[in-house]
């Protein structure tokens, strides 16, 4: 399966917020029967456009900033040299296999244990800790099934590697990995 698999280049350092590059692109809405009708008959004070039917904003919902992290990572204190598993929303859908950390790279595989006809989305976040178990920063592995045609049997195990980000080189003593994004069906 030739899904696009990439690592994000942005390193999330805990002290600084990752700014989302959000360029404003206005929502456009399809004209629909209601608005056409209202306009034609002129019986409504204001023609009811489609956005009166579709809720396009959600008061009280805080829009996401940056890429997903796992809150469980901040509470972990992985022992020096170890790879811990950080809990996330999909822990009952996969198992980690062959986790290892060689000082420069954490690697392993996510084996899907729930339904698999396609692995649409998978993100593995790695938290990098110093020898005292203090979280220094994170980086991630991203699998996204894009426009590719299906070209093989479903993949049940997705291997990943995540390197220690350059600014943290030489300071990392332990790692935790977890899965904040998983869509398989």
């Amino acid at each position, binding site marked *: 399966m030739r899904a696009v698999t990439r690592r994000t280049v942005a390193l999330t350092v805990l002290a600084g917020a990752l700014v989302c590059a959000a360029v404003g692109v206005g929502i456009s809405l399809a004209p629909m029967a209601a608005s056409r009708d209202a306009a034609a008959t002129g019986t409504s004070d204001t023609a009811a456009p489609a956005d009166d*039917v579709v809720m396009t904003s959600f008061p009280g919902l805080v829009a996401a900033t940056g890429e997903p992290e796992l809150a469980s990572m901040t509470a972990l204190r992985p022992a020096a040299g170890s790879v811990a598993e950080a809990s996330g929303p999909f822990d009952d859908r996969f198992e980690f296999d062959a986790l290892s950390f060689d000082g420069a790279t954490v690697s392993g595989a996510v084996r899907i244990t729930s339904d698999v006809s396609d692995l649409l989305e998978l993100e593995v976040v790695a938290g990098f800790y110093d020898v005292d178990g203090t979280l220094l920063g994170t980086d991630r592995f991203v699998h996204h099934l894009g426009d590719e045609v299906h070209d093989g049997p479903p993949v049940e195990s997705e291997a990943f590697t995540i390197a220690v980000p350059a600014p943290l080189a030489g300071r990392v003593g332990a790692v935790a990995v977890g899965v904040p994004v998983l869509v398989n069906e």
Partner: protein
Amino acid sequence: MRHLPLPRRMSSVIASTAVLALVAGAAAVALTGTAASADSSGSSRAKNVIYLLGDGMGRTHVTAARERFVGLDGRLAMETLPAQGFVSTYAVEKLSGQPGAADFHPNAVTDSASAATAWSSGVKTYNAALGIDAKGTVAPTLMELAKKAGYRTGNVSTAEITDATPAGQMSHALARGCQGPVYSAAACQDLAITGTALPTSDVRVTPIAEQIARNGTADVILGGGLGRFDAADETALTAQGYQVLGSITSQKVATKTDLAAANGAKVFGLFNTGNLTVEKSKLDNPTSVQAQEPTLPEMTTKAIALLTAKYKKEKGEKASKGFYLQIEGALIDKRSHANDAAQTLGEMKAFDDAVAVARDFAKKDGNTLVIVTADHECAGFNIIEKGTFTNAQAATPPANADSGNRANSSTPVRPSNAIDPSRSTGIMNGAGSADAKNFAPATFRIPSDPATVTDGSPEAGLWLTYLSGNHTGADVPIYATGPGSDQLQGSVDNTDLFDIMGRALRITG
């Protein structure tokens, strides 16, 4: 408010042209009713519409389930509905125009997202898109229109409720993978459509779970996918008056006991953190936690009961006009992808039992349109003659060239039988070839078989094979009864279902 001429028996719903307030704190809106286009005949109008689909259910899925469960000379519940026809299901490429436009670029094989958008919003879109056309423009859904027009609404699935089919009625997303609980750029954005990343406040990149928990589109939500929702979603649901079964915050799944006790005007019940469990597994493991999940017919029965119950109205709320209910048998597709005929058949039976519930309600009610169809076929399911094998497994495949009668032979476009790497990577079953379980044909006993014949034996009467592990572009069957169902006699396109259901409920032009 305007008053429109309505057929006599619909006079009780003149209030359809009322001003309605949106739930959940969005700006109040005035929706002008869109009833009664000049050419509507009274007979195409219904008080209620129940739309049932078997995900991945092709014509052969129906035939195989019939032969397995009621015999070759029997009829499934869906097959007893009087109007019958076929539905074309094709999708379009990204940025395509609609059929007839100069920039129309069709794609023969749809996924569940594009198909759901076709009947929910009446537009062709690209695979993975929900509630938007192929250029990214938001298109209102039937369930949103029905809700705003004063109908009660329900959405039931055996998949995660954020999965493409249920999500198609109650979300708008560039990518079906943006399910939640959290946003991620890879899962939610699609630069091929928008050029630059949309702000994360844009509905089209807002995780589907967050949309469903806040837009109030469906009054009754039953299915799987509790893991997609978080504590903030539970707060948002409760604030809108939903009775939440189980607990989202503590990720405690709801049970069929919880469902039986549910009595709210708005009910949110998810019975598994992921997809619901296949019926066969629950039957085989009756003491498991999963066996406490309700079946699809049980959820259908309860959804209808909740949607037809009388509730104390909120101040200013109009009398309910009827309901619009979507029911999905999702695991037919998921188990067809896996070429698992036994579970596929079990899911077909559960789906047909749900159809029987809807049919029986409609018979009693007398003013309900019931439509049964599929979003696409899955896996090229087929019934082969006893004792035969598929071509891919045959020692000698049929020859395309007829050496005896040259008139039958065309000139091969490829010079040799070497694998064309752009179309084939070789024998896909290769790694599993040592395991007999991986290979069709699967055999099942049928009611007319002697009592000694067992499933899996060569003597069994039903021999089943699969062509692939993915969707096919075959037309799917459609069955219907009730007001307006005569429009489904024959062949229609999946986008026509938007118009037919919309006219039945008088919510589209």
